[in-house]
């Protein structure tokens, strides 16, 4: 897929809770197609301690408003700065980067498991599956009720189940403890903290379910040239930014 570098315009920047915010960017040109699981690299050039771009998943592409949505967690210097960006500001972005979640077989039952800000790529995936006439089940986990984000948006594409660690919403516990997992799914897609994804991978392996996980890694270039972002796979070191971020868990050398 052709990659672009362009200055996108902030159209909205909405705090979702004290840690997360939703950033909407638009382009003068029509945004190109972006696949679920792909990411963008955002330049943060007004921040003295940030040097490299920041990788962020494509949360959603709103074709009607020509908007790219990013769901961002304020975690350090760069995302902190991003949270202050205001409508009208120009932001230099490289997009779309990386591979994507694979298309499941028609009429298969699909489970999308997200944890924390890892829910980000699953919204676009929901939209994508809908276009393929597949209605997925979402299982979204967070620490607490206020960290469960965009539930109404997810609900547009499938049934949403939730867990919170403190039990303030949905089932109490971790996603891998949710009762919905007693059902049988054909395919699982997951994104979230590594321990969560490893638990999901273990569940999938045990139940012989095909599973794809979207990984993170420290990235310098995002386009496969620096070789900084490797993941150990059965095929050796592969770049998360080009061979991923989505990997089939059977290709990963995860100790689970």
């Amino acid at each position, binding site marked *: 897929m*052709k*990659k*672009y*570098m362009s200055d996108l315009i902030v159209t909205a920047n909405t705090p979702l809770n004290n840690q997360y915010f939703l950033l909407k960017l638009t382009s003068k040109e029509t945004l190109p197609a972006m696949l679920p699981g792909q990411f963008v690299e955002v*330049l943060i050039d007004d921040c003295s*301690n*940030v*040097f*490299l*771009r920041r990788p962020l998943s494509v949360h959603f592409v709103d074709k009607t408003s020509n908007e790219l949505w990013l769901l961002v967690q304020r975690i350090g210097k760069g995302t902190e700065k991003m949270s202050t960006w205001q409508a009208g500001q120009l932001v*230099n972005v*490289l997009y779309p980067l990386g591979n994507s979640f694979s298309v499941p077989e028609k009429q298969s039952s699909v489970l999308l498991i997200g944890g924390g800000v890892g829910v980000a790529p699953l919204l676009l995936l929901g939209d994508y599956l809908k276009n393929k006439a597949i209605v997925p089940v979402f299982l979204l986990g967070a620490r607490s009720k206020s960290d469960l984000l965009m539930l109404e948006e997810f609900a547009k594409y499938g049934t949403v189940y939730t867990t919170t660690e403190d039990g303030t919403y949905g089932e109490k516990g971790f996603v891998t403890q949710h009762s919905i997992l007693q059902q049988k799914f054909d395919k699982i897609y997951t994104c979230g903290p590594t321990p969560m994804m490893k638990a999901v991978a273990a569940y999938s392996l045990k139940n012989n379910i095909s599973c794809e996980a979207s990984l993170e*890694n*420290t*990235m*310098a*270039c*995002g*386009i*496969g*040239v*620096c*070789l*900084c*972002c*490797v*993941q*150990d796979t059965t095929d*050796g*070191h592969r770049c998360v930014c080009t061979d991923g971020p989505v990997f089939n868990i059977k290709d990963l050398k995860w100790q689970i």
Partner: protein
Amino acid sequence: MADLTTMLGSLQLKNPVMTASGTFGYGDEFADFIDIAAIGGIIVKGTTLHHREGNAYPRMAETASGMINAVGLQNKGVDYFIEHIYPKTSAIDTAVLVNVSGSTIDDYVATAEKIADLEHIPAIELNISCPNVKQGGMAFGTCAASAYEVVDAVRKVYPKHLMVKLSPNVTDITEIARAAEGAGADSVSLINTLLGMAINANTRKPVLSTVTGGLSGPCVKPIALRMVWQVSRAVSIPVVGLGGIMNATDAIEFFLAGATAIQIGTANFIDPTTTVKVIDGITSYLDANGYKSITDIIGKLEV
């Protein structure tokens, strides 16, 4: 419009802007963003005799105005390069150079020998300065005698343009440069990365799997500029300058300091169009200041 044609000894480049090894892949990764044939020279990823998996991850730490990498020369080996990559790089209408790395002199020689046969590779850059490999690498480049030895051995088997990439992790870089020149190098390029380290205070662990790694980016520019200035006054062969170049102004500083050509490294990660912007910016600078050719400013620092 000023003439950017650059002669590195007998190696002609359409302009003096090259890409630094390990930061530009094999070129085509940038084709969506720029016309890669517009670049003066593309130096591909460090290539070794055998396939290397490189270091474990994490391999990267961001630092103030820079980054540390610990890639460790991950590459599929020279034979894979020749068979699978060379056919593609041959199609690029500009000079494509191979950065040759190794752990032993025999490795360097064997790799260089294989590349010598490739019609569309007019030169190699001999990397005697990689800080990210346990054996060899930087060790060759931090001592004049061993630098001489490896350059001399490669020189014997490699008849085309031999560029030697120097390490900044030395007390006196002019000494190493002179050793390379004495052993028959056609040019020297500098600097490779500075040995650095990053620690995560929260986890109390090194950020990199290898503890230390190579520092690059604008943070090292003052050191690179100083070394280019020192080396260009110490040797007669052309000097290729790099280290932290982010824009045309940075590049011009290197030319003034004595560089005949420059390389863009880490900047490619921040802005994949940096190379062509720098080329355009150099032309504008020369035109605005009434220079006819890039050669008019090389080493023209008024001290």
